[in-house]
């Protein structure tokens, strides 16, 4: 027992493992639970975590592009609206935003489906954060690119679409990938608005069997696998876009 006392953390792990080792029945039970909870967790990921992430990101990105453009126009009122929006979202916790949308809006007669509430909450969030990224990326493209576009007769929107945004996309790909990966993890907050995404599934499972460590770790591993896959995808996309290096 002496080594256990040496380091409390090490001790806890050992205790857990020795529990399992000592009790073969318990080992078998844990393996069984790990196996039987895998599919419900994956199902939560496939039917909620992943769709919620993708749908929110697409809407969020559109919103972010519009917000970024609003912030760089010369139209004062658009600038102000965009600024207030970004400031309000960045200045309040995502959890509170989700509560306002799902639990708060019914007080004024607006009752939304949980999934819709979550999509709105996450899209607004991505829209605000990503708009800063996109705005910075657009501003990082040299003025000469605008002028070159104008000089061959292009209009503002043609230069924007064909010359500026493609280059800004390359610049903002790494930070936007980070936003996307964060979003995968943030969707676990949707559990509070009753969506049975992966984390809520984990909560449901543990409420029956009390194997918190095992089941939450299992969920964590699945998040990890998804995010690692996305990182690889990001690297691949960056390489593809690097055909030209500026």
């Amino acid at each position, binding site marked *: 027992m002496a080594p256990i006392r040496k380091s409390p953390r090490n001790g806890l792990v050992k205790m857990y493992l020795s529990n399992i080792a000592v009790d073969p029945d318990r080992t078998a039970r844990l393996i069984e639970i790990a196996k039987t909870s895998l599919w419900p967790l994956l199902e939560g990921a496939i039917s909620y975590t992943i769709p919620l992430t993708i749908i929110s990101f697409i809407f969020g990105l559109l919103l972010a592009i519009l917000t970024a453009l609003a912030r760089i126009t010369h139209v004062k009122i658009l600038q102000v609206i965009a600024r207030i929006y970004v400031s309000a979202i960045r200045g309040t916790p995502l959890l509170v935003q989700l509560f306002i949308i799902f639990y708060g809006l019914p007080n004024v007669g607006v009752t939304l489906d949980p999934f819709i509430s979550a999509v709105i909450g996450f899209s607004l969030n991505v829209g605000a954060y990503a708009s800063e990224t996109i705005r910075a990326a657009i501003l990082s493209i040299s003025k000469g690119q605008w*002028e*070159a576009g*104008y000089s*061959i*007769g*292009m209009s503002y929107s043609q230069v924007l679409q064909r010359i500026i945004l493609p280059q800004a996309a390359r610049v903002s790909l790494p930070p936007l990938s980070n936003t996307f990966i964060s979003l995968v993890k943030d969707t676990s907050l949707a559990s509070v608005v009753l969506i049975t995404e992966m984390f809520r599934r984990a909560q449901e499972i543990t409420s029956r069997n009390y194997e918190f460590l095992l089941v939450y770790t299992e969920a964590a591993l699945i998040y990890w696998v998804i995010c690692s896959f996305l990182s690889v995808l990001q690297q691949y996309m960056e390489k593809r876009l690097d055909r030209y290096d500026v």
Partner: protein
Amino acid sequence: MISIKGLYKQFDQLEVLKGIDLEVEKGKVVVVIGPSGSGKTTLLRCVNVLETPTKGVLTIAGQTLDFSKNVSKKSIASFRRLTGMVFQNYNLFPHKTALENVMEGPIIVKGEDKAKARKKAQELLEKVGLGDKIDDYPSRLSGGQKQRVGIARAMAMEPEVMLFDEPTSALDPELVGEVLKVMKDLAREGMTMMVVTHEMRFARDAADEVMFMDGGVVVERNKPNEIFSNPKEERTKRFLNMIM
């Protein structure tokens, strides 16, 4: 072909162009020289309305913009189509190949058919000696090659007038010749050109007229031989002594 009348340009407090008058006949080449800050770049940028003049009247190929009145975005856009601009630092589109850089204007602005635009772009690139580089991205090209793509890109829009702002001053000396050669070819083919440059060799060989600017005004204009060997104004003499 080009007519500039009473052109003024002011940035905030600073008056950069103080009444420029200039006529350039079709097919003629005017070289603009002058000390740094004299307003050469600003003049070219006013001619293709990248800068909006404070006042003055610009006419190119019969189209007129009078900046004492309000000019619409639309009239600026159609006026700009009459000019092609070559920039000191190329400003090629880095995410497009040489060919795509040249095709962009014809396809997007003129709405030309893709195959036709491609064929024309290829011919233009061959003409500037880059037939073997059409699929390269600008990052793979030397400065001289980039600038020749820049010229081809402007030419693809079939402008009435070509404007060059120090097209060779960002280049290593050994690359200057290849760009000047393309410009001389253009001049020989009858393109109307306004060229800001410090290459006096080019001015001697290709210019019909040299215009010396200082402090936002045209100090002296004359045939290259005249102005170089027999400048009339004291300021012109001093400037030429300094650079030659």
